[in-house]
């Protein structure tokens, strides 16, 4: 049986029918991980623990007491805190950090009998768009190992695309789920800010961060979201808005209005990406959806606004890594200040230090008003742009990324170009809106192209409906999986 080609929804029927066991599924993925070490998708793999869990869940399946995610083998981005398991955040500074507590989402998914197979690689602390900023070596794109998988949830995207697990968790601060999902040809969902508890996600930029699923199908992403979502008393910014059951959502898009923001069809857009998006728009139009042009006039300020707010918050969030209580400490320092400086200089990677410095700068006295305060004002304007647009449309459709996966090392030397690869994704984080990326085609080199659907706050249901429709009806999506 080729487990690679199966999403969880298909796998589950086989598990229930006892045609396959959780242990077999888990062993299959463990073998795949072993065979694909060159992808570098995982930082830690819990082979024994995962098999032990699989045994327990097989027993539960036999008893008829298994949870809704029984046998769903999950890769966990190593930015999520897992109890008694090393949590590195892709950084040297947390190389040996073993937390005594666990993220709320992991508790929730564990309760539904998902199996955690390992911690996936990422850009250090979620900072990057190519997964090249990991202390644990770059991740490679399963579609072409000379190319990046995108970032920062590159390990999770590569693991799902390479069938090293059924699905994976990522985090998205400026596109870190959607852009790698697009580069690796999988489904990536960033929920509405507040939809999923952030407790146990190591913070990069607290007002932008969200945890979300990367999966082989829209149905899987929807199913995971359902069990991840909900108010958590440990996260004051989490919301108690109920999540609809995706399996009962209406599949038609007839009569629904889709907004196409004119500002997103920019000169840097690759022609292949453009035509794949055009095809998708045509598909929706042919299916009875109404296509409307909308305007998001402050889009051009999104990248700058994002890098001010995100780095400002990061500069504070990462201050706790000082070598005093846990993590890497320079032992040769002769005084406190030297200990701080050396521990952080040697413990953090270049991109992280660049962002900490940028964030420190924009908050400094004399610069606060010009940068941070102004960025907050623009953020409000960006939010209003979307509110305005959503008065007339049910969802907004854009490319996820202007390009397909670029080559390893291609942009490392030029952080600004790298930052621009987030141009279509960061606005949602600033506005707190949900977005999903799913495959909509391939370029001439066979690299996946992603389409992004943006919804109103807490209306994941609508974008999942569109995504499910595109997934089902797009003729070029016949082969999502990659053989590696």
């Amino acid at each position, binding site marked *: 049986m080729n487990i690679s080609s199966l999403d969880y929804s298909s796998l589950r029927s086989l598990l229930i029918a006892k045609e396959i066991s959780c242990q077999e599924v888990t062993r299959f993925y463990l073998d795949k991980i072993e065979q694909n070490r060159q992808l570098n998708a995982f930082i830690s793999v819990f082979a024994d623990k995962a098999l032990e869990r699989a045994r327990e869940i097989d027993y539960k399946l036999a008893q008829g007491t298994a949870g809704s995610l029984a046998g769903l083998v999950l890769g966990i981005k190593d930015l999520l805190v897992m109890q008694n398991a090393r949590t590195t955040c892709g950084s040297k500074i947390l190389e040996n950090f073993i937390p005594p507590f666990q993220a709320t989402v992991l508790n929730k998914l564990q309760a539904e009998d998902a199996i955690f197979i390992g911690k996936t690689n990422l850009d250090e602390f979620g900072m990057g768009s190519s997964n090249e900023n990991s202390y644990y070596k770059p991740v490679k794109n399963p579609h072409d190992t000379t190319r990046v998988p995108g970032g920062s949830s590159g390990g999770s995207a590569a693991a799902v695309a390479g069938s090293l697990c059924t699905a994976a968790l990522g985090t998205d601060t400026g596109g870190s789920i959607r852009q790698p999902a697009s580069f690796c040809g999988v489904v990536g969902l960033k929920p509405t800010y507040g939809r999923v508890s952030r*407790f146990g996600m190591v913070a990069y930029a607290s007002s932008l961060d969200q945890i979300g699923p990367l999966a082989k199908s829209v149905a899987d992403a929807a199913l995971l979201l359902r069990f991840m979502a909900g108010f958590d008393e440990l996260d004051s*910014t989490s919301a108690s808005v109920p999540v609809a059951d995706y399996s009962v959502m209406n599949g038609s898009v007839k009569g629904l209005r889709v907004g196409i923001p004119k500002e997103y069809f920019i000169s840097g857009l690759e022609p292949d990406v453009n035509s794949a998006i055009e095809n998708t728009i045509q598909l929706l139009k042919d299916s009875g959806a109404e296509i409307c042009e909308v305007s998001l006039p402050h889009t051009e300020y999104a990248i700058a606004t994002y890098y001010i707010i995100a780095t400002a918050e990061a500069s504070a969030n990462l201050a*706790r890594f000082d070598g005093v209580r846990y993590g890497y400490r320079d032992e040769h320092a002769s005084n406190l*200040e030297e200990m701080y400086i050396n521990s952080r200089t040697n413990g953090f990677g270049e991109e992280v230090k660049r962002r900490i410095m940028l964030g420190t700068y924009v*908050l400094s*006295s004399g610069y606060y008003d010009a940068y941070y305060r102004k960025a907050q004002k623009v953020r409000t304007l960006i939010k209003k742009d979307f509110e305005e647009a959503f008065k007339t449309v049910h969802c907004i459709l854009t490319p996820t990324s202007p390009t397909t996966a670029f080559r390893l090392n291609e942009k490392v030397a030029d952080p600004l170009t790298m930052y621009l690869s987030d141009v279509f994704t960061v606005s949602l984080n600033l506005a707190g809106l949900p977005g999903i990326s799913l495959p909509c085609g391939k370029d001439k080199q066979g690299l996946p192209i992603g389409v992004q659907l943006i919804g109103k706050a807490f209306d994941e249901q609508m974008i999942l409906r569109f995504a499910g429709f595109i997934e089902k009806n797009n003729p070029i999506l016949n082969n999502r999986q990659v053989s590696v």
Partner: protein
Amino acid sequence: MIYEPVIGLEVHIQLLTQSKIFCSCSAKFGASPNSQVCPVCLGMPGVLPVLNKKVIEFALRLALATNCQINHRSIIERKNYFYPDLPKGYQISQYELPFCEHGFVDIYVEGLGAKKIGLTRIHLEEDAGKSMHSESYVARDESLVDVNRCGVPLLEIVSDPDFRSPREVSAYLTKLRQLVRYLGICDGNMEEGSLRCDANISLRPVGQQQLGVKTELKNMNSISAVEKALEYEIRRQTAILHDGGKIKQQTLLWNSNKSVVEPMRSKEFAHDYRYFPEPDLLPVIITAARLEQAKSAMPELPQAKRTRFIEQYKLPEYDAQVLTEDLEIADFFEQAAAGVQDKKSASNWVMGEVMRALNEQGCSIKNLRITPQHLADILVMLEQHKINLKIGKAVFEECLQTGENPAEIVAKKGLHQISDSSAIETLIDKILDNNPAELSSYLEGKEKLFGFFIGQIMKETQGKANPKTVNELLKQKLRQRQETTININ
């Protein structure tokens, strides 16, 4: 030239909440180091703060009691600096939009009269931990950190620069301490650091509007230390200005052993705190309904209690003033007076015996072995003439030492007052018969000897005889003897 000091205060009070401000760890003082910690207050990666609702309740009480304008919406911010006792590398505090603003506290200074001290603002924040540079570790180039205090809730009360003398500062701190105790939000203990005071002070020629260069004074752990440090700093700045020198803006630490101020190392305070709104916490919203609820739940404040004591217990103003100075004493009085007819006598006992005991033992009223109920028992026994005043004081003393029930002390020691006239009469006769010389002297007019007989009777009864009865009966008996003598003659 004559200079006048301009002083402003920043007071931090630790709130008496059960748990810390952003986690469920105990906020209790004095536990063994690092025993009251969790991932949240240790600032581990991935944790988030959750605001303790009790903190808002306490802040509302103080805001209302100090006449502040309460902001409908206030913002929680991060104050960034590195220090080993600050696990997150930032302190969660408030900056641009504090909890409340523009309040005032009335003070009264002997000889100077009443004065209003303006409050600039009161805001919420979390306490930091404690760095300990104990000698044995410093020798090994190590310092220790106790994180127990991290996340203990604080309110910072910033005054306007309204003080013109250290005595006004003392009066204000005394008032503030009384207030927070009355509100039940802080124990006001400066020695343990639950009430901390930093002072900003500058001098200017009298009549000048413009402020001089200020220094900041820290590390004063009693009200008298604050007063002394300010007096010292006024002398120091005056001397510099008189010599034509310039005041250097700096932070100074009060050294209570040497009674001098010493400069803090400049590195320790040269910060750009880079405040910005804390994204992990929502703004604090105080609705009109919440405010009304807080108003109706306000505890009685000193002024109101004073007035009530005068009206309800018919106490003189002086008594009411003394008894309400300290909430615990006021409560002690009220509990003791509850079952007693003579409230004034209860007041006398509290102001006299109880306060004397407090002074002698140097402890808080809660730690006295005698309880309000004990005192009430003694007062009732007095009222019912079961014991006399002298015995009452002895029982009080005994109870103070042992904490034993006064009725039991009386029973055990057989201290019940002898009011039985026939028994006393018999005793008087016996004493008069046994002291013929004194009796005849008395009868011859040496009336001072009346006291001698009283003494004898009291001695014989071990003080238990009802003095009033003894007095009356003795007079009666002596009169009888007089008549008998006259008759014989």
